């Protein structure tokens, strides 16, 4: 029987503390599981429960998967207690990833907030892999404080990619050690950073951040169908059957979770 609710066992190879409440887990599934950047999977603690996460690793690496997970509820709190060597379950991938082919030849403008950088890390890795196919890659990332920045040790290596990756980090609240911009991420979204007539924008972060970033992007001249949003709803079954993640005429699990703004802008409560 081809059981869509069954998971593949995966061993935790490594756990990295990103921030006080965010960790990155590197998993090796017993049988390889491929995915495309932007797709999500359900990670489970056998006998406890599962939750949806978008892998944050390079989709060209087939045997291991990274998941960057914020402690937010029952399952994630328990996942945070897991150690290298523990076995978890993985099923998926589900949904549609970022349409990389449509991004080719364009300037890719990425805006992330908090743990929302996780799916964007998978996207960046995918873009870096064919970095010359994209005219420009810009990442604007916002975190609450300098302590809340994820992938701190990697970001400099991203900056070095092929010379045309522009990365800027902003923190909502500054401190003595922070030399960069202080303010919401919207404050670093300025005219002239990209050619909006030949650019796509990808946004992932907390709902309130996505809302104001989207409005700012539209102000900057991005067209509604070039703004890609990660609508992380309560995805559960992953196959459009359980009903939890319905948003208007879509199921986020199979029609998303990435939607262009024009497709969802008229639906109620999209930012809640």
């Amino acid at each position, binding site marked *: *029987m*081809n*059981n*869509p*609710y*069954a998971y593949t066992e995966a061993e935790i190879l490594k756990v990295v503390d990103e921030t006080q409440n965010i960790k990155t887990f590197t998993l090796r599934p017993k049988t390889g599981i491929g995915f495309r950047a932007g797709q999500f999977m359900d990670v*489970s*603690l*056998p*006998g*406890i*429960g*599962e*939750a949806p996460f978008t892998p944050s690793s390079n989709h060209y690496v087939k045997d291991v998967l990274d998941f960057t997970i*914020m402690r*937010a*509820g*029952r*399952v*994630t709190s328990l996942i945070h207690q897991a150690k290298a060597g523990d076995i978890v379950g993985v099923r998926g991938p589900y949904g549609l990833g970022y349409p990389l082919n449509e991004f080719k030849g364009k300037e890719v403008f990425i805006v992330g907030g908090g743990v929302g950088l996780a799916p964007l890390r998978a996207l960046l890795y995918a873009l870096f892999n064919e970095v010359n196919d994209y005219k420009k890659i810009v990442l604007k990332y916002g975190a609450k404080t300098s302590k809340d920045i994820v992938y701190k040790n990697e970001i400099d290596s991203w900056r070095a990619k092929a010379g045309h990756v522009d990365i800027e980090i902003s923190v909502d609240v500054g401190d003595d050690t922070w030399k960069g911009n202080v303010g919401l991420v919207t404050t670093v979204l300025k005219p002239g950073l990209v050619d909006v007539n030949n650019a796509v924008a990808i946004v992932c972060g*907390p*709902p309130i951040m996505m809302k104001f970033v989207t409005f700012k992007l539209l102000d900057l001249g991005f067209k509604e169908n070039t703004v890609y949003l990660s609508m*992380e*709803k*309560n995805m*559960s*079954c992953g*196959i*459009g*059957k*359980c*009903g*939890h*993640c*319905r*948003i*208007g*005429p879509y199921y986020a699990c*199979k029609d998303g979770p990435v939607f262009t703004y024009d497709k969802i802008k008229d639906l*109620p*409560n*999209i930012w*809640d």
Partner: protein
Amino acid sequence: MEKKTYKITKKDLYDLFARLSANYRVFLPYADGQRLDFGEFDPKKEDRIELGGIRQSRPVKGFINPPREKILDTSRKDKRPVILAGVKACDLASFILQDFVFLKGEVEDPFYAENRNNTIIIGCDCTYAKETCFCLAMEGAPYPQKNFDINLSPAGDSFIVEVASEKGENIINNFKMFFKNHSATDLNVRQANREKVSREVRYFIDKRGTPDTSAIRGAVKKSYNLTELWKDFASTCVECGACNLVCPTCHCFLLYDEKTAGGNKRFRMWDACMYNTFARVAGGANPRKRLYERLRNRFEKKFDFFPQILNYFACTGCGRCIEACPGDIDLREVLKGLVTGKWNKPPHE
């Protein structure tokens, strides 16, 4: 296939059920006070069998899509095929939706598929209508027209038998001695009953002013911002989820894991979109924080989403939600309010 018709006496039918129960789990409706409920065939309880009547108090979906089903391993205990007898047209209609959700799409739900294949459905005409019945407004009828293997139409001490599938045909062929030819008069009796019950349903629809699907189409979208309407109707809701659970078309479920001595188990359990937790994510975000938004969502899903993606109104007019609601929220009144823009405050206000 062309539907063949026969006749069977009540006594022979009960004998048939007794014979079938050797190889099948046979469930049929028993009268239990005012209500009808499915029970497993028991020859000692023949006097309480009520194949006609109206829909049973519980939706038939539970036999195919059980309230709680183990879905991680496939070692399930009782694999005997099931016969469901006396299923009414409003419940049969719900299979349009349940089959669409669980069998169609990129992935088939193997547990539903197994239960569905493993079940023979014997429908039965309604022999009266209840005040809460409105199948005719929802493009249905008080007698089965589709989604059954065999249908029974009560006619005096006998039933007119209509066969609609190979599964049904096999039963008839295996038990030929029970099935007789019927007369033209028998079909007239069937027709007369169907017209009588249809008139009763129509009377209740007209009395209530319940709109039909042609009026309802687009009404949720149009009246989405009638916030006062949604708030008024939701004002007596106690978030019990009964409307979801008794609804034959509601299909949403929760995945639930459990650690036991026998190993890790995963269950699929019915869920209810009226619950605050239904759409809430771990971080606390919830697109439908308020009760009235959840009530509105329920109507949107039934009368907007499914007509849009399946050309099907996910309501069969069975009226169970009206009876089950402790807050007296009447789906017909909500629909009427959507269509007319006028509504009375619910009785508790």
